[in-house]
C-alpha cells in the first residue's frame, strides 16, 4: 500500500512537470486553438519517449508501467497540452497486443488514436484526435479495425477546441476482436480520469491564487467563508478523485478483478470533480473568469468536453450498472 507517488514516480513527475511547463505553457495551448493540436509540441514530446513509454522495451518502448504513464498524463492534463498523448498511448498499446505493426508509432513519428464509440456503416464519428491521427483503431461489429491514413488536419469546431473529426474506415483492415477492445477503452477511461485530476487541480489552483490576490470590500475575496467553502468542497472531491483515478490505473496495471469497474467509476467521478473545480474557480474569478484573457475558461471548456468524446455520461452509468447488477430485465440475477 503506497497511496503517494513512489520515488521513481516522483522523478517522472518532476521531469514532465518541467517539460510541459517549458514546452506547453498556456500560450501554446491558446495558439493551438481551435485546432487543438501542436505538431511541434508532439515532436518534442516524442523526443522524451512519452508516447511509447508504456510499451515494452523489446519493441523500442520505455518499458514503463501504466502507472508511470499516468503520472505523465496527470501533468499533461494540468497543462492542457494540445497533443493526443492518451489516445496515442492507448491505441498503440492495443495494436501491440494485437500484434499489429507499431514501428512508426512507438517513437511517435505517426500519431495513433482510437474511436471511442463503435463505428457505424464503415465510419467513425467524431473520433478523438481524429483530425490529426495517421492511424485510427475502431471497433466495427465484432472486429476491431485499423485505418492507415493521414487525418484531415482539422475537424468541427467544438467546446473544448479538441481535434475531433469523423473518419471514414472503408480502407481499414481487421486487427483484433471486440473482446480485447474493452481493455483499451478502460485504459482510456482510467488515464483520462487521471488527466481530469490534473485539469481539476490546476483549475482549483488558479481559483485559489485569484481569490488570495483579488481585493473586494477591502479584503482578499478568499477571506469570505462562502468562497472558502466552495473551494474546500472542490479540494475534497479532487483528493477523492485523485485516489480513485490512480487506484483504477493501478488495478488495470496489476490486472485486479475490479479494474474495469474502477476505470469507469474513476472517469465519471473525475469528470464531475473537474467540472466542479472549474465551475467554482471560474465563478470566484467574477467577470474575469468569463473573459478570454484569463486561463480558467480554457479549463472550463475542456472539463466539459473531454468526457463527452465518449458519449452521454448517463450511458456510462448504465453500462456500469449492467456490469454490476445485470442488464435491465435480468432482475439483478447477474449480481
Amino acid at each position, binding site marked *: 500500500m503506497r497511496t503517494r507517488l513512489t520515488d521513481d514516480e516522483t522523478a517522472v513527475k518532476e521531469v514532465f512537470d518541467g517539460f510541459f511547463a517549458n514546452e506547453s505553457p498556456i500560450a501554446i495551448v491558446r495558439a493551438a486553438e481551435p485546432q487543438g493540436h501542436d505538431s511541434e509540441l508532439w515532436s518534442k514530446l516524442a523526443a522524451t519517449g512519452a508516447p511509447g513509454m508504456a510499451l515494452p522495451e523489446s519493441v523500442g518502448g520505455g518499458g514503463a508501467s501504466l502507472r508511470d504513464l499516468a503520472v505523465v498524463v496527470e501533468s499533461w492534463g494540468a497543462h492542457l497540452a494540445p497533443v493526443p498523448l492518451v489516445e496515442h498511448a492507448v491505441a498503440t498499446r492495443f495494436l501491440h497486443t494485437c500484434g499489429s505493426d507499431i514501428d512508426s508509432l512507438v517513437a511517435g513519428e505517426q500519431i495513433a488514436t482510437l474511436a471511442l*464509440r*463503435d463505428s*457505424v456503416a464503415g465510419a467513425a*464519428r*467524431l473520433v478523438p484526435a481524429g483530425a490529426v491521427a495517421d492511424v485510427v483503431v475502431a471497433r466495427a461489429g465484432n472486429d476491431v479495425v485499423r485505418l492507415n491514413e493521414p487525418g484531415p488536419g482539422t475537424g*468541427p*469546431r*467544438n*467546446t*473544448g477546441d*479538441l481535434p*475531433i473529426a469523423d473518419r471514414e474506415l472503408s480502407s481499414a483492415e481487421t486487427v483484433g476482436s471486440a473482446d480485447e477492445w474493452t481493455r483499451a477503452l478502460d485504459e482510456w477511461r482510467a488515464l483520462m480520469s487521471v488527466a481530469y485530476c490534473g485539469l481539476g487541480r490546476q483549475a482549483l489552483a488558479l481559483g485559489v491564487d485569484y481569490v488570495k490576490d483579488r*481585493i*473586494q*470590500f477591502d*479584503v482578499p475575496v478568499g477571506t*469570505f*467563508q*462562502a*468562497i472558502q467553502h466552495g473551494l474546500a468542497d472542490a479540494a475534497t472531491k479532487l483528493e477523492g478523485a485523485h485516489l480513485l483515478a490512480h487506484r483504477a490505473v493501478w488495478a488495470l496495471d496489476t490486472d485486479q478483478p475490479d479494474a474495469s469497474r474502477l476505470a469507469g467509476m474513476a472517469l465519471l467521478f473525475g469528470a464531475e470533480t473537474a*467540472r466542479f473545480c472549474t*465551475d467554482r474557480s*471560474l*465563478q470566484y474569478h*467574477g*467577470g474575469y*473568469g*468569463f*473573459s*478570454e*484573457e484569463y486561463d480558467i*475558461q480554457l479549463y*472550463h*471548456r475542456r472539463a*466539459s*468536453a473531454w468526457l*463527452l*468524446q*465518449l*458519449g*452521454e*455520461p*448517463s*450511458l456510462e452509468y448504465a453500462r456500469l450498472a449492467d456490469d454490476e447488477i445485470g442488464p435491465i430485465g435480468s432482475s439483478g440475477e447477474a449480481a
Partner: protein
Amino acid sequence: MDFSFPPEVEAFRTEVREFLAANLTDEMIAATHDGTIHAPELHAAMAARGWIAGPVPEELGGAGRSALESVVLNEEMQLAAAPVDAMAVSIVVASILLEHGSPHLKDSVVPRLLDGSALGCFGYSEPESGSDVAAAQTKAVRDGDEWVINGAKMWTTLAHISDYVILLTRTDPDVAKHKGLTFFLVPLDTPGIEIQPVPTMAVERSNATFYDDVRLGDEWRVGDVNGGWAVMKTALKYERGIAGGQFPSPTVIDAALDWAQTAERADGSRPIDDPTVREKLMRSLIDVEVCRGFAYHTASLAEEGVMFGVEGSMTKLFASESYKRHCREFQDMMGVDGLITHHNDDAHLGGRIEENLRHSPVTTIYGGTSEISRNLVAEGHLGLPRTR
C-alpha cells in the same frame, strides 16, 4: 391570490408574439454570433411601437404601460431567443435619467433612447471593483464649468455600438467610499474615450473603456455631486425590475426536447424514451415554472406600486443557477454532438445548447453574483447580521 393576466395584457402578449413572428428572424438571432447581442432593426421596430418607452412611468415622460406588460414583453422575447440586452439597458438608462437627470438630459437624450435612435450602456465596474462597485476609482474633477474624467471601466458591454455610457465616478476620495461618488452621462464620441473589445469564452463581446482627460459640462451630471450612491440604488431598482422576469432556460429546454425526440442512440433507442432524460426534462420545466412565479410576482408587486428588492435577487439567483445546471445536463445528454459549435452547419439547432453552455457561467456573475444575491437575501430577507 390570482395569477391571471387582465384581458388587455393577454391581448398585448398576443401582439408581442405576432410581432416577434413577423419581425424576429433567424438571421437576427444568428447575427449575435459576432458578439453583439443586439438587433438594430428589431430594436427600431419595437421603439416605433412605443415598447421601449413602455415601462417608463408616464409622469416621467414614458408610456407608463402596465408592469405586467413589461414582464410579458420580456418573457416573450426571451422565449423567442430575441436579443434583449440593448433594449433592457436603454430602458434602465432612460429611467435613471428621468429620475435623476438634468433638464438637458431629459430633453436631449431620453427621447432618443426611447425612440430607439440612440443606445446607452452601463459604466459601473472597473478593473479593481466588480462586486464592490462602490470602490470605483475613475476620477471626475471640476475644472471651471467643466468636469475632467480620468479612469477605466470594465464590462461596458455594448459600448462599441452605444451613444452614451452612464458613468460612475469618484468625486471625493476623502470620504467613506459610498459618499464620494457622482454619476455622469457621457456621450461616447467625446474626445479622450477609447473602447477596447473584451472577448469572452462565449459569443458575447464586452468592452473595456478608457477615459483620458474627458471633458464634460455640468449638464451631463446625473444626480447630486457626491450623491452617486442614490443614483446607483435607482439603477439597481430598475435593473431588477427589468430582471424580474428571467427565462434563460426555455430555449435550451426546447432544443433538448427536440434532440431527445429526434436523435437515435447506438442501440436504436431515442433519448426521450430514457427515464433519466425524462426526469431531467421535467425537473428543468419545473424550474421554469418557478421562474414564471417569480416573474409574475415581481410584476404584480410593481403593478401594485410596491417596490421590490430582495425578490429581484431571488429571481436572479434561482434563474441563473438553474439555467447553468440545465445547460450542463443537456449538453451531456447530447453526448459528443453536444460539443459541436454554431460554426458548423450541421450543429443541432445551430449549436444552441453548446452556445448556452458557454454563455451560462457568466449569468451567475454579471448583474450581481450569486454570492452577492445570497448576501442580500440573508441580510434583507432573513435579517441575519452583516458578515462584515
